[in-house]
Each structure stands twice: as C-alpha cells, then as structure tokens.
C-alpha cells in the first residue's frame, strides 16, 4: 500500500519524530511504499544537519537521512515553516542573502502543495505531532 507521513513536531521535543521514524521503518519492513514524508511546523527542525545530539543518544536527523538513502524516501520540508525556523538549502540561502545552508542529506525544501499531493496520491496519510 502507498503511505505518506506528516511530521508536525521537532526532534527531541516529545516523541512524535521518534514515532514517525519507527512507523516508517515498520511500514517499509512490511513492504509498503512510503510515498513521501512531509515536515511541517516545528517538524522542519528534523531536517537540519547542524544538530549535534550527544553521542550516546539517537541522531534523529541521521536516521531520516539514512532511511532516505536506503529506501529512496522523499523527505520534504515546508518552505514557509523552514524559513521561519532558519532551515535553508543552498538556493534559499542565496536568495535570502544568508551565509550558509543547513539542510540535511536526503531532505528537500518545497511547498505545501507537496503535502496535498501526498494526501491525494497515497492510500493513507498518517500524522504525527504535538
């Protein structure tokens, strides 16, 4: 089945980013397709490569990036939510006159239309958040 996931909460906030990762892993393990993971509101903070959690703690952003690499996941960060919270890719950094970008590997920045499209194209949309 084709599933999409919406993440509305940042990493290390409560538990939703962890729940979303565990759900995504379980769905892939059962042979389902993850059409897209969309990060909205504070969820965009999942997509910064500048976070450095303690070494004995899980690295949520790395987990997303390696899942994306392994399974070709489409990890999409909402552009308006990202700009408010300082999540930038190379293009956006240039466009906004910032001195660097911080988007993590496997993530891309795009618009809310990508969430709507995921909802239309997928059999189920599962929401994780605060």
């Amino acid at each position, binding site marked *: *089945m084709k*599933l999409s996931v919406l993440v*509305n909460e940042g990493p290390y906030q*409560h*538990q*939703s980013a962890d*729940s979303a990762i*565990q*759900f995504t*892993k*379980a*769905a892939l*393990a*059962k042979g*389902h397709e993850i059409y897209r993971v969309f990060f909205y509101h504070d969820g965009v903070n999942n997509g910064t490569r500048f976070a450095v959690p303690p070494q004995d703690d899980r690295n949520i952003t790395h987990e997303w990036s390696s899942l994306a690499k392994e399974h070709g996941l489409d990890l999409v960060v909402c552009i308006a939510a990202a700009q408010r919270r300082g999540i930038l890719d190379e293009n956006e950094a240039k466009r906004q006159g910032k001195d660097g970008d911080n988007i993590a590997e496997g993530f891309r920045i795009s618009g809310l239309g990508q969430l709507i499209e995921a909802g239309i194209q997928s*059999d*189920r*949309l*599962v*929401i*994780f*958040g*605060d």
Partner: protein
Amino acid sequence: MPMLHTVNKSPFERRTLDTALRHAVKGSAILLIEDGVYAAFDGTVVADKVKAALSDHKIYVLGPDVAARGMSEHHVIDGIDVVDYGGFVDLVTEYDKVQSWL
C-alpha cells in the same frame, strides 16, 4: 464510517481521548500511542470509561510505548490488545482512514 483513531496524549493532561471517543462511530478502532498509553492501564480514574468504550470499539495500545514508561502488559486493561509498530502499520492499512488526535 469506522476508521482508525490514534490518541497520543495522556488522558490526565488533555481531552483528546474523550474527543476521539465522542466522534468515533461504532466499530472504529482506537490506538493509544506515546503518552496516550496511560489510558490503557487498569485502576486509574479513567479506566471505567475506557472499559465502557470497549463495547463499541476495538482498543489497541502500542507495546513499545508501554514499556518505555516502565509499565508492562499486565497493567493493561483486559480486552485492550497490545500491538507493536508492525501492528500499528497493519491497523493503518486495515481501516480506510486514519484520524490522529493530537
């Protein structure tokens, strides 16, 4: 239409479980995850309400989130099924729609 409702807040903190139970039609499934698992334990002030809901709904609780809170399956009310993340995925595919009460 019967569907899957997920509840991720403790019933001692928020009212989302009440809201979910009020909106869920007969035959719907309720899956308790994250702090929502506190609703699944017996002997609490909400336990009677949850037991009553079992006559209209299937209620599930996410086992890893129970364990993460230092509780075990024998604290869980009889009639509530404990599932793992794979079971969560199965419930999502089994029901036509998923409503996450956040």
